[in-house]
């Protein structure tokens, strides 16, 4: 089996920036894209805050450019998903849905994924009324009534975006207030299509076998249960880092993110590095992910050089 210098897991801004730097440093990196090539930015529309694009750029277009630039210097980008890793001994093993690879260093840049409610019916009706991507699916709910679950900025953004298409939006919030920033709260509260259900939890997604038709709700103050008729449910309750493959090996912080040495991208295992949202619950921006991806490539190059 060929021994790689560097395997990069993840194809968002962190992974592809690390790939660009590592390829230019002649480490011939191999990068596994995973199930969501391009990462979280592919679920958005216009990215307005990435420097260098003064009139904005589509998330997918930005990620295509990242990939092109990484490939220009020899990165091998593979449409494969990592299903297991073995970090027990140096010369680490990374198993994908196709093959097993070995490398001297591994960069974990698997990012974070949208969380689901984990209630009955939610999975069954995914793509049939349940969605975590307003920009992908909002179009299909033109003239309909939908529910948004969540009280943070992400939920407010989803609601505002969806208000372009749908007739009525009910935001279901577990607490009696929003976690979202003041500016987002004001924007949403001004929108005449949006109303709120406070102290309310969604307990079950109900449907007719073909598509979602209603939700079973529970008021955690009055302890009353009700059935709420709706056409769609958009879940926006936050993100969780994609660490399940690594938990066994890598030290995580109390929030479940990968813990790196202060000011570096080194993890608790020599030769394993982490960058981007998987190791950052504070900033979570495309530009900061790209920044730590660059740091990781430099850390890795020096680490390999020092041995």
């Amino acid at each position, binding site marked *: 089996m060929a021994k790689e210098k560097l395997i990069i897991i993840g194809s968002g801004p962190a992974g592809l920036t690390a790939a660009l730097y590592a390829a230019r440093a002649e480490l011939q990196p191999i990068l596994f894209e995973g199930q969501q090539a391009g990462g979280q930015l592919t679920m958005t529309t216009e990215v307005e805050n990435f420097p260098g694009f003064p009139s904005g750029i589509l998330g997918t277009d930005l990620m295509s450019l990242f990939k092109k630039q990484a490939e220009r210097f020899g990165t091998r980008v593979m449409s494969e998903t990592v299903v297991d890793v073995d970090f027990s001994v140096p010369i680490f093993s990374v198993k994908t849905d196709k093959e097993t690879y070995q490398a001297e260093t591994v960069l974990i840049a698997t990012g974070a994924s949208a969380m689901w409610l984990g209630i009955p019916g939610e999975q069954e009706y995914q793509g049939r009324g349940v969605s975590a991507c307003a920009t992908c699916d909002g179009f299909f709910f033109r003239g309909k009534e939908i529910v948004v679950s969540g009280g943070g900025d992400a939920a407010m953004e989803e609601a505002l975006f969806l208000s372009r298409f749908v007739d009525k939006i009910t935001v279901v919030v577990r607490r009696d207030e929003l976690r979202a920033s003041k500016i987002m709260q004001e924007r949403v509260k001004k929108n005449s299509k949006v109303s709120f259900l406070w102290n309310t939890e969604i307990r079950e997604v109900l449907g007719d076998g073909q598509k979602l038709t209603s939700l079973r709700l529970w008021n955690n103050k009055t302890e009353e249960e009700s059935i709420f008729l709706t056409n*769609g449910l958009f879940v926006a309750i936050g993100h969780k880092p994609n660490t399940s493959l690594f938990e066994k090996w890598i030290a995580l912080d109390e929030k479940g993110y990968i813990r790196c040495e202060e000011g570096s991208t080194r993890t608790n295992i020599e030769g394993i590095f982490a960058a981007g949202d998987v190791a950052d619950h504070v900033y979570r921006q495309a530009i900061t992910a790209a920044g730590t991806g660059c740091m990781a490539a430099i850390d890795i190059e020096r680490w390999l050089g020092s041995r």
Partner: protein
Amino acid sequence: MSELTLTTDNFDFHVLQADRPVLVDFWAPWCGPCKMMGPIVEALAHEMENVVIGKVNVDDAPEIAQRYNILSIPTFIIFKGGQVIDQFSGSMTKETLRVRLEHHVK
């Protein structure tokens, strides 16, 4: 074989009357995950024999999307003998899609 562009005019002929299994990719140009899946689906169309692969732009053919209750994209439907035998949504790798498809081709 190259990927077919399916429209309301040719959908029944290419999909429902096909003598082989058909994978249909429902997509739109404004959908990020769809755009990432585009080249993957196209590559599979070239690599896989015994299966027809086509795409429906839901902007151009909303009636087809409606007929199959599409509420999310990308959605993939596998047809056999004119019947829906599998339907799934969201982005995935080429390997995942290939395995899912091969399962129905054999």
